[in-house]
């Protein structure tokens, strides 16, 4: 298939000396959608934060396009082309929709380029177009989630990392968020996602990893995982 762009090699992580991740390795190939699934507190978000540079691994390396990025600060990692959409939206609550988007493209200095991207992205999320001047915190939950995805896309990332997008969304919105992800993938962006809704996530992903108490316990194509008995029992509640 295609090139491997992200390679996580045997990383260990800890918060305040409390270890949470033990020797995790995986890889993401170009134009793929990879899902990481697992139970609560298994360490999925920690892995994402480690890649995004918010947490630094105690051991091991993270390679992006062959270069080690494991100790770069978060703002430098974005400049390499990895955009992370954190859990819980994390919008700039007092700024307007447009200002939030502008900040998404903060690393870009070319005015024209920013305008162009803004247009493209607002086309992808028509609901935001209507609310350009609205303050972010007054948007509804679904709109906020859309805005956070849109903001993440403003930096034109090659690798998009999504953390628990469906959390706290009503069923019909979960549906549309998943559709959006598929659309973004179709435009050629590589996606790495973490999701509690195992079924939904694996339905749209190419491959998946199952993580348990800080270790990867299973890996494979999403079909394989969906059919595996362990996964069914542990995560799908069947």
């Amino acid at each position, binding site marked *: 298939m295609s090139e491997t762009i992200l390679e996580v090699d045997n990383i260990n992580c800890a918060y305040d000396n409390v270890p949470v991740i033990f020797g995790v390795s995986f890889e993401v190939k170009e134009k793929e959608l990879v899902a990481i699934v697992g139970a609560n507190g298994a360490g999925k978000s920690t892995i994402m934060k480690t890649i995004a540079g918010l947490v630094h691994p105690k051991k091991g390396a993270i390679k992006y396009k062959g270069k080690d990025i494991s100790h770069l600060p978060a703002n430098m990692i974005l400049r390499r082309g990895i955009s992370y959409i954190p859990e819980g939206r994390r919008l*700039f609550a007092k700024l307007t929709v447009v*200002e939030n988007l502008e900040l998404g493209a*903060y690393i870009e200095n070319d005015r024209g380029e920013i305008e162009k991207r803004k247009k493209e992205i607002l086309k992808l999320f028509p609901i935001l177009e209507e609310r350009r001047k609205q303050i972010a915190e007054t948007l509804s939950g679904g709109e906020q989630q859309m805005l956070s995805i849109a903001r993440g896309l403003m930096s034109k990332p090659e690798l998009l990392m999504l953390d628990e997008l469906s959390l706290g969304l009503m069923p019909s919105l979960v549906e549309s968020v998943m559709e959006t992800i598929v659309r973004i993938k179709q435009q050629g962006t590589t996606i790495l996602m973490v999701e509690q809704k195992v079924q939904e996530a694996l339905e749209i992903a190419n491959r998946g990893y199952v993580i348990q108490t800080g270790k990867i316990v299973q890996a494979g194509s999403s079909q394989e995982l969906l059919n595996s008995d362990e996964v069914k029992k542990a995560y799908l509640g069947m």
Partner: protein
Amino acid sequence: MTMFFQVAIDGLLTGMVYALVASGLSLIWGVMDVLNFAHGEFLMLGMYVSYWLGFLINFDPLISWIASGVFCFLLGILTYKLIIHHCLLGPPLSALLATFGLSMILKNFALNRFSPNYRLLTGTLLDGKRTLIGNIVLPMPQLITSIFALVVVFIIYYVIKRTRLGWAIQATAMDKEAAELMGINTERIFLLVFGLGGLCVGVAGGLLPSYLAVHPEVGGLFGLIAFVCVAMGGFGSIPGALLAALLIGLVEALGGFYIAPVFKYVVVFGLYLLVVMLKPKGLFGW
């Protein structure tokens, strides 16, 4: 009636100086949630810079405010790098205590280097000049300082509200981690904010020696009043700090005149309590 207006005008002019001192503090406070206890001492050092320039090479405060602004900008940056940066990891109070320690260092450094003498620049361009509107006296040094205060406060407000840098500053204030994920170098933003805070107070310090004596203890009360201005205006709100500073100046002067001079700060602090009782987040607070 003339007396009333005269007192009110004096109060407003004083308020402008408070505004300049407070806006720097407000910026730091709003973005980093750090109470800079050494703010008054920044002012004191800014005044010393301006004084020495005037004393040694005859620079007028009208010029040397640039130097003291730059000096305090650098001082702010240094403070951030050496102290605040490390304290941000701990509970919010640690930064407050560290800056309290810093204020002790700076105050006694000034005492050590410049002796406890109070110093005043004489023969500056604006010295003793004044204009009259009707019967009301407008002293020039205060007037010019007020104009500077307005301009600086306005520039800062504009930068924060209307530029990408300003949005980045606001974003950092709201959610540091998310800002980092936007590619904003939050470290640099913090550095810049602390520098800007220093710059504001440095400009104020640069202009003050034309009518206020410099000595190591001069910053104390200014710092305290700046705290009150910032809290009264609502943390992080520059227009709030401006309005609060003007109010405080006015109330201080009127209260001092119509009640008793000894009560003027009582009135100021009382006003703060009153305002926050009615609006617990200050005049313009979120």
